[in-house]
């Protein structure tokens, strides 16, 4: 049976899709058979970031409607073994994802995969709820700013009641936080919330802190998950996060301003 993990946030543009691509790739690199599903009906971002947009034939909605079977719709990643992508539909019909349909697809994927990563659309409406409903765990993606943290808080509340796990009375959906686009410089200037602020407000375990990094933009322009860029700070931070997700204990990195060490700050004047 696969473990279903939803990548969600409430707010848009915080790094859900970037994270879905990185986490799915990272898990596959560790040898876990992984499928990543784009729930963002009408937008289709994941296939671009995974660099497989030109190989899309069928999509999630086609499978739900019975126009294609899963084997036809799943795209095998060219760079990473064990990794498959189920792209979102371009359809404008947001109601195309039915609960029964989603459940059927997830059940079928569960037979074959170790992990199913669900890339949620923004918002707290139907699409986001559908992406989260069948999950066994959630990763809530947050940026270090007040409105993003507030939305994540709201999403955490929803996850504690509007998921299958919660409805079965098995308690709130287990959720961890991924703080992305973190800029230590801006935190020091007081323009952004710090890791401690965010942890304190949300009272939830921190899976990782991903620095704000040009490498993310470069990778996404190249159609490559940033985790494959082993040289980059963001790539390394995502690797740490995947290791922690798999139970390893790793210290958080990239939390303080680079180059300017302790002395730099002490003698800043």
């Amino acid at each position, binding site marked *: 049976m696969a473990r279903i993990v939803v990548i969600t946030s409430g707010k848009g543009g915080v790094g859900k899709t970037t994270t879905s691509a990185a986490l799915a790739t990272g898990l596959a690199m560790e040898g876990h058979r992984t499928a990543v599903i784009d729930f963002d009906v009408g937008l289709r971002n994941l296939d671009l970031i995974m660099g497989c947009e030109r190989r899309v034939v069928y999509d999630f909605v086609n499978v739900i409607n019975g126009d294609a079977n899963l084997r036809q719709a799943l795209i095998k990643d060219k760079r990473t073994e064990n990794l498959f992508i189920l792209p979102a539909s371009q359809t404008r019909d947001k109601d195309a994802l039915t609960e029964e349909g989603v459940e059927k697809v997830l059940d079928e994927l569960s037979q074959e995969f170790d992990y199913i990563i669900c890339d949620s659309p923004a918002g707290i409406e139907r699409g986001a709820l559908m992406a989260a409903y069948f999950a066994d765990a959630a990763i809530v993606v947050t940026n270090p700013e007040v409105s993003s943290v*507030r939305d994540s*808080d*709201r999403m955490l*509340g929803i996850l*504690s*009641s509007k998921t299958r796990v919660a409805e079965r009375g098995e308690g709130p959906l287990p959720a961890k936080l991924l703080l992305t686009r973190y800029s230590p410089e801006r935190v020091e200037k007081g323009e952004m919330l710090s890791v401690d602020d965010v942890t304190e407000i949300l*009272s939830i375990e921190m899976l990782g802190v991903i620095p704000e990094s040009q490498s993310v933009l470069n990778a996404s322009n190249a159609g490559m998950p940033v985790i494959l860029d082993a040289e980059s700070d963001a790539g390394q931070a995502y690797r740490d996060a995947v290791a922690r997700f798999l139970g390893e204990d790793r210290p958080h990195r990239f939390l303080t301003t680079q180059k300017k060490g302790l002395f730099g700050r002490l003698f800043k004047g």
Partner: protein
Amino acid sequence: MNAHPSPIQPIELKGRMILVSILRLHDADTDQLNEALDARMREAPELMRDMPLLVDVEHLANTPAETLTQVIEAIRGRGFKLIGLQQGAVAQSVASGIGLPLIVLGGKGTEVPLRAAPSPQAEPANEPSPSVHKESASAVQALHTASLVVNQPVRSGQQVYARGGDLIVLGTVSAGAELLSDGHIHVYGTLRGKALAGVRGMTGARIFCRRLDAELVSIAGHYRIAEDILDAERGENRLVTLAGETIVISEI
């Protein structure tokens, strides 16, 4: 005409908070509805009669206005305290005919799964019969029967109501979250949201919190919003009480 202005203002405006219940109608079948209303009233006559009620008719889009009017009359006729219709498209079309104002209730609070099933003693059915001291008597009695303990953080958009007792929250209460209690409220994390104690009139209700940074605190309908809570009053180990008509925040 009096040439000198009277020192007494002709009107005085005072803010108070009340707890409003929403009665959502799912079906306009009059017989079924009457039956359900009667059952509710039998269960908790005092509670139902005391509680200001807002009617939500948005699920009855296909019901003719005439039937809706009858339905509302049926509710009124049973002694429910109707204060208005919940704002919405259906309500808009019938409100003037029914003679009830449209009221917007901010934020559709998320259903919270945290609510413990009330213990049998807490059922208002065996409340003492009405007497002058009814309120305080039943409140005191209830305190020992229906305390609600919440083990998780209460998050933005969530609402927890401890009916007939105290509310005890072990985690933090986020900005945008709301705690309601007929009795006291205890928060063992940081209180950043709203906390309303004694919502059914218990003036002796208190709010205790490990750290207070609230958006609003209220006791028995008297309240202070964030803007009126001084920085010095925010901080660790705070106690909120009602002294006369004033909300007092002090250190424990």
